C-alpha cells in the first residue's frame, strides 16, 4: 500500500516540508513528458506537456508548451491562441489533471524498454531510506540556498510564462512559484532535459526513499551538473527560442540562389528542398564536378561538348587572371553552351546546365541576371561585368560572332577590375 508509505513519508521526511504521498509522486512522474489536459478552477482547460510538479504541500504543476484549449469563465493573462512556454498552475487553481494513455512502469510491464540500463536510477518506492533525503538536502543547498522549499522560480522569461488563472492577478500566479520548484528555463532543449529531470529528482528524493544509496548518488550528481546550466540560463533568460534547427532555420542566401537559378534553368530540380539547407557548400561541390573548362583554351575553342565550368573560388585572383586570359574568345564559347559564370563572392556558381537549355540565349542571360541580384556586394565591380557578360553570352552562341563580341566585352571589364595590364594584353591580342 503505497499510501501507508506515503503517510510515513510525510511525517518522517520533514526536511522538505509536507510531501505528497508516494503514489501521487509516482503517478506525477509518470506523467512527465506526456501531454496532459489541466482543468482550472475557472473552467478553462490547458493542454501542455507535463513538466514537473511541486511535491511539497501545495501540489502544483508545471506545463511546458501549454495552450488553452478551452476558455474558462475568467480572463487570464494568457492569450488564447498563444502557446505558453512554461505554465505554472498553482494548487489553488488546479482542479484536475487528465492524462491519456499513461504507462505506469512496473515489473512485467511491457513497453518499458530501457529498464535495464536505468537500474541505477530506478527507484523503488516502498522503503523509506534516508539516503534520498540526504541527497535531497544537498540539492536544496545548492539550488535553493538552504531553504527547505526549493523556491527557485526560474520561469525565466517572466511574464510570458506566467499563468494567471483568470481570476487572479497574473503576477501573483507567476510569482507564486515558491511552492514550485521550477527549474525550468526557457532554455534550450539540452538544458531543459536536465532541468526537468532535476525536478523529478527532487520529487523522487523527497518522496521515495530508495533502499540503496546508489540511486541517490546518481541523482545528486545529476543535480550538480544541471545546476550550472540552469544558472546560465537564468543569466540569459532571453534564450527563448529553442533553436534546434528546423525548417525555417535554413539560411536564406543559398536558397535564394538555388531558386533563382533553378527558375531559369530547370525548375525540376528545385523541388528537392533539402539542398538549401546546407548553405553554400552544396553549390560549390556541385559546380565543381562539372567540368572545369580549361580556360587556357585556344581562341577558337568552341567545344560544344564542354559543359560546365569554371568555378573560380579565389576571388581577386580570379578576376585578374581570368579575364585577361580567358575572356578571350575561347572562354566565351563554353559559356554560351551551358554555363553561367557566376561571380558570387566566394561561390562562383557555375551551375551545370542541361545542354538543352543552353541554346537559348535568353535563358542564359537571364541566368546571369539573377546572379547579379544575389550578389549585391560585388555589384560595384560585378555589375559591370555581368552586364557585359550577358550580351556577350548572347553573342557567344554563334561562333562567328563570338570573337568580335568578346573583344568589346572583355574590354569593359577591365576598367572595373582595374587590371591595366590585362587590358593592354587583351586589347593588343585581339586587335
Amino acid at each position, binding site marked *: 500500500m503505497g499510501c501507508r508509505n506515503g503517510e510515513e513519508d510525510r511525517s518522517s521526511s520533514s526536511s522538505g516540508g509536507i510531501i505528497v504521498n508516494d503514489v501521487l509522486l509516482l503517478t506525477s512522474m509518470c506523467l512527465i513528458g506526456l501531454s496532459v489536459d489541466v482543468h482550472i478552477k475557472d473552467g478553462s482547460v490547458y493542454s501542455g506537456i507535463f513538466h514537473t510538479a511541486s511535491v511539497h504541500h501545495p501540489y502544483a504543476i508545471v506545463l511546458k508548451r501549454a495552450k488553452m484549449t478551452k476558455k474558462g469563465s475568467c480572463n487570464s493573462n494568457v492569450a488564447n491562441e498563444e502557446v505558453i512556454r512554461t505554465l505554472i498552475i498553482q494548487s489553488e487553481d488546479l482542479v*484536475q489533471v487528465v492524462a491519456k494513455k499513461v504507462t505506469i512502469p512496473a515489473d512485467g510491464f511491457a513497453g518499458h524498454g530501457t529498464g535495464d540500463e536505468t537500474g541505477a536510477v530506478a527507484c523503488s518506492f516502498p522503503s523509506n531510506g534516508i539516503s534520498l533525503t540526504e541527497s535531497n538536502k544537498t540539492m536544496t543547498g545548492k539550488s535553493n540556498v538552504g531553504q527547505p522549499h526549493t523556491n527557485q522560480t526560474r520561469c525565466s522569461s517572466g511574464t510570458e510564462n506566467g499563468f494567471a488563472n483568470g481570476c487572479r492577478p497574473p503576477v501573483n500566479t507567476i510569482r507564486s512559484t515558491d511552492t514550485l520548484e521550477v527549474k525550468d528555463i526557457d532554455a534550450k532543449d539540452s538544458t531543459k532535459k536536465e532541468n526537468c529531470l532535476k525536478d523529478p529528482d527532487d520529487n523522487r528524493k523527497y518522496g521515495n526513499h530508495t533502499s540503496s544509496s546508489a540511486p541517490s548518488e546518481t541523482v545528486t550528481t545529476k543535480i550538480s551538473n544541471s545546476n550550472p546550466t540552469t544558472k546560465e540560463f537564468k543569466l540569459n533568460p532571453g534564450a527563448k527560442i529553442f533553436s534546434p534547427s528546423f525548417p525555417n532555420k535554413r539560411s536564406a542566401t543559398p536558397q535564394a540562389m538555388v531558386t533563382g537559378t533553378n527558375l531559369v534553368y530547370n525548375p525540376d530540380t528545385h523541388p528537392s528542398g533539402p539542398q538549401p539547407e546546407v548553405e553554400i557548400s552544396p553549390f560549390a561541390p556541385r559546380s565543381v564536378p562539372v567540368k572545369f573548362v580549361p580556360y587556357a583554351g585556344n581562341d577558337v575553342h568552341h567545344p560544344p561538348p564542354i559543359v560546365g565550368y569554371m568555378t573560380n573560388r579565389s576571388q581577386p585572383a580570379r578576376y585578374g587572371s581570368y579575364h585577361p586570359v580567358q575572356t578571350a574568345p575561347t572562354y566565351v564559347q563554353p559559356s554560351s553552351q551551358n554555363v553561367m559564370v557566376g561571380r558570387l563572392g566566394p561561390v562562383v556558381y557555375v551551375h551545370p546546365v542541361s545542354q538543352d537549355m543552353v541554346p537559348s540565349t535568353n535563358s542564359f542571360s537571364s541566368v546571369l541576371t539573377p546572379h547579379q541580384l544575389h550578389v549585391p556586394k560585388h555589384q560595384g565591380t560585378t555589375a559591370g561585368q555581368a552586364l557585359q557578360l550577358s550580351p556577350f553570352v548572347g553573342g557567344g552562341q554563334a561562333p562567328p560572332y563570338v570573337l568580335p563580341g568578346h573583344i568589346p566585352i572583355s574590354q569593359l571589364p577591365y576598367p572595373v577590375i582595374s587590371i591595366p595590364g590585362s587590358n593592354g594584353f587583351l586589347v593588343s591580342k585581339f586587335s
Partner: protein
Amino acid sequence: MDGSSGGDEFAVGCLLSIKTTFGDEFEGQIITYDRPSNILVLQEGLKSNPQSRRNIRLLKANYIKEFSFLGQSEDPLDLKKCYLDLHSLQSKEDAAVRQAEIDVERIGVGVTAEAQSIFDALSKTLPVRWDKTVIVVMNEVRVSSPYLAESVTGGTPAANERVRKVLELERRRLQTRGGGQ
C-alpha cells in the same frame, strides 16, 4: 486511504463514478488519495487489460460534486514493483517538447484554415515560416493575406517568381482537392 488515516478519506482500489462541479462525469478506480493536497488519483479504462495504458486523473477532491461507489477491487498499483527511468522520462519530455515546438511553428496564429493549408502546401517544397499572418518563404519572399499570387512580395525577382508559381500550383491543387471531396 487506509483506515490508518481516517474514515473520511478515499479507499484505494475503489471504483467510483464521479461527477465534478464542472459537469465532468467519469468512472475510475482510486489509485491514491493525497490528503495534504486533497488530490485524488484515479485511473480509468483498465478493465480490459490492466497492463495497458491507462488514463490517469489527478482530481482535487473538493471539486467532486458527487460520486457513487461502484465496487472495490485490488490495489491498482504495487509500488514495490514500480520503477521509473529518469533517462526515459527525460528523453520523453524532451521529445515531446521538440515536437511541440515543431508543431507550434507550423501553425499560424490568427490565420484562416485556407492560409494554413497553403502554408502546409508550400512547406512541402520550400522552407517556410510564419511571421504573424504572413508566410515567409525562404526567409525573403513574403506572402500575405489573401495569399494569392499577387500578394507575393519581396525577394529577388527569381525567388519571387518561383514562389508565385508554387503558390499558384498549390492553390490549384488545393482547389481540386477541395472540389473532389
